[in-house]
């Protein structure tokens, strides 16, 4: 066959996978009910069994490049546009990095307000993912018609639950907006601290609403345990299961879960781990590049074994996000979430590897986040009027790190004498999970596609493996 290449206009979106070898390729495009832009290609062999799979991340915006030259104090409200679902995480990590560049010390109340906003944003994110994106697969069934297998179908099937969910999520968003001005793409966190103090009246109002949120979180996890997790068959529990290490942030004092600050803990698949400062992240983590994805694939460089996504013998692969955080932490500092963690751990061990457990872990974190918000709001010092120290633009380097809903988030910047960004390296939560998602896709595809038989339900199950990671 002649090897000619043609470029079609408009460009070819065929994305031939393994082009030229005549194998059948199944395209899941776009992956839906996720927050990013990607496709799955499943290549079948002549017998119709899975020969290979790929997760193609098809977008590259270039934030790390285009913040070069920008005034560093402006950057925390540029990079929040990396993600409209977790803008608070980027906003906060970026401010921490700029604090580092400028040598800023944040006053205690400024720090408390930053943490409060970050944890409040986590609450809304978890409700959004579980009920709007993931739940349709469980409430309506993996094989339900796609036209109803969505949040609108959930509204029809369980109108009271749906109304409650929509109301509570929106209330959570409005709590943030009322205090902080802008909830999607926030501006209130600033280098050196926070742009406005909290008044006592605001604290009281938020306290009252936060108590309602905790009650709702308790309802959510009970509902999910009874209506979703109790009904999972073995095949579903094992969907997308892979064996990997884990990364997350823990409090250096007692190893407890912490979204806002602490030590990074990198756990091997056997449960042994190493703690390190986020400032040293580049000594522990590397990023691998494949020709077929714009997204890079972080791996544990410190393990010295290289990178491989081979299901039987993965190398350097670790995961982040909810399940990872619950695996690496020794405990949770709030009582209700700690009780949930103990139940979870008694049943699934540590580290738990089943990908489907990301959903369960997400709801345990929802309970933690609601308890943590109440704890932060109960501290009267949060209303201290000193929330920001002035900063001075100058040359420096800073690394900011927080736990985003989708995993450990690292912003690393350098500045010049005028405080303009000269260099940036960002590792986003979901990016850590790109290699593991590739592996989960392969595992799920192997388990649901046999002898050339491809059903809509089977393909949705492959996507369900991806949705666990909430990418």
């Amino acid at each position, binding site marked *: 066959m002649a090897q000619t290449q043609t470029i079609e206009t408009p460009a070819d979106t065929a994305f031939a996978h393994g082009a030229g070898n005549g194998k059948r390729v199944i395209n899941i495009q776009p992956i839906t009910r996720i927050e990013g832009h990607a496709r799955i290609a499943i290549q079948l062999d002549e017998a119709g069994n899975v020969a290979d799979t790929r997760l193609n991340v098809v977008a*590259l915006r*270039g934030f790390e490049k285009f913040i070069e*030259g920008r005034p560093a104090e402006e950057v925390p409200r540029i990079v929040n546009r*990396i993600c409209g679902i977790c803008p608070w995480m980027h906003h906060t990590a970026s401010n921490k990095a700029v604090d580092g560049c400028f040598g800023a010390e944040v006053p205690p109340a400024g720090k408390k307000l930053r943490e409060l906003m970050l944890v409040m944003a986590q609450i809304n994110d978890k409700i959004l993912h579980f009920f709007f994106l993931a739940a349709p697969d469980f409430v309506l069934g993996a094989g339900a018609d796609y036209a109803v297998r969505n949040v609108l179908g959930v509204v029809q099937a369980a109108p009271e639950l749906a109304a409650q969910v*929509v*109301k509570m999520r*929106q209330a959570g968003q409005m709590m943030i907006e009322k205090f902080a001005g802008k909830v999607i793409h926030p501006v209130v966190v600033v280098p050196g601290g926070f742009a406005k103090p909290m008044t006592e009246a605001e604290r009281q109002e938020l306290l009252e609403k936060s108590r309602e949120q905790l009650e709702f979180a308790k309802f959510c996890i009970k509902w999910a345990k009874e209506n979703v997790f109790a009904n999972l068959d073995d095949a579903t529990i094992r969907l997308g299961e892979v064996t990997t290490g884990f990364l997350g942030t823990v409090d250096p004092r007692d190893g407890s879960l912490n979204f806002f600050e602490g030590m990074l803990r990198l756990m091997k698949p056997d449960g042994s781990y190493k703690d390190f400062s986020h400032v040293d992240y580049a000594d522990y983590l590397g990023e*691998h590049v494949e020709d077929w994805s714009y997204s890079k694939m972080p791996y544990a460089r410190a393990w010295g074994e290289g990178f491989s996504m081979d299901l039987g013998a993965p190398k350097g692969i670790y995961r982040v996000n909810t399940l990872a955080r619950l695996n690496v932490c020794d405990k949770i500092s709030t009582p209700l979430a700690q009780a949930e963690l103990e139940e979870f751990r008694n049943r699934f061990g540590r580290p738990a590897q089943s990908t489907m457990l990301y959903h369960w872990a997400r709801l345990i974190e929802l309970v933690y986040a609601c308890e943590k918000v109440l704890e932060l709001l109960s501290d009267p010092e949060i209303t201290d009027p000193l929330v920001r120290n002035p900063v001075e633009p100058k040359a420096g380097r800073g690394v900011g790190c927080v736990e985003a809903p989708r995993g450990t988030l690292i912003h690393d910047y350098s500045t010049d004498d005028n405080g303009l960004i000269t260099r940036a390296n960002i590792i986003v939560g979901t990016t850590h999970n790109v290699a593991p998602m590739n592996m989960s896709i392969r595992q799920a595809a192997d388990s649901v596609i046999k002898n050339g038989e491809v059903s809509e339900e089977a393909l949705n199950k492959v996507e369900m493996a991806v949705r666990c990671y909430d990418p």
Partner: protein
Amino acid sequence: MPVKVASEWLNSCSGCEVAILNLGETLLAVLPQLEFVHIPVLMDHKYFGQKGDGDLHHLEIPKAVVGLISGSIRTQEHLEVAQAMRESCDLIVALGTCATHGGIPSLINLYEYGDLMERYYRTSETTDPHPNPGDQALPPILDRTYALDEKIKVDIRLQGCPPHPDLIGEAIVALLEGREPKLPMRSVCDSCPTIREGKGKLKKLQRFTHNAHYDPAKPISEMHCLLEQGFQCLGPVTRMGCAGLNGEAPQCIRARVPCQGCYGPVKTEGNQLLDYLNALASNRIDINSLADRATLLEFSGAHGRLQRNKAAGR
């Protein structure tokens, strides 16, 4: 009969979609009148058949009356999706400042493609150096980031990063009622209650390295204008709307932070950089006190506004 709606996101962050969800109970109220036929964030309709075996040269989006598109156009795939949406939908709504003016990701128009790739895949601190990903599976990246109307015809523009839920709600209701949406068209300053004393005193701008001067116990209407306090507030050159339709103050101002300009220019075809320089000059404020001119176009860098050879004088 419910109105059929298709929704797509291109070079975007999903913030516009979250803003739709933030309609909350209003959304639940209008839902029975809407029939979503395609919306990747919420619904599993696929481009090439539900079993992934369709014709890969024909990206299929079901027919709809209203097509909502967020995000700018950055890749060949974005371009094809935008064109397919145009073909399938009677009305195209450009949702958000990325779709109308390029948005934050249009800042990449300041840089060479090769420099981006070099930084991203070869010189970053953590990356194992590798040639640019070039597999056929990946849609090629275009020469720059485009606003939607540079590539397809747009019927309604909803500026904002993201547009306030009140504006989205008004647009939806207007479409259902078959009328033009009533969207605020003036500047952010026209919705800002802060105290302005007038021209003359300010000689240069300062960077936002310390908080504004105000009493947190008092309402916004008792705070002195942040531009007059000397901060780079883009209110005068930015389309209003972030205050919603119920008399709130602009959102950044409520955070006691200067306006960032995220709703794009006041007039659709306006230029936030030139308008701002004019405003400063006419008030005898030193334009050389700006820390970085490119940030004035950080939301509206499409339409050739931000270019490599015009890169950010400061």
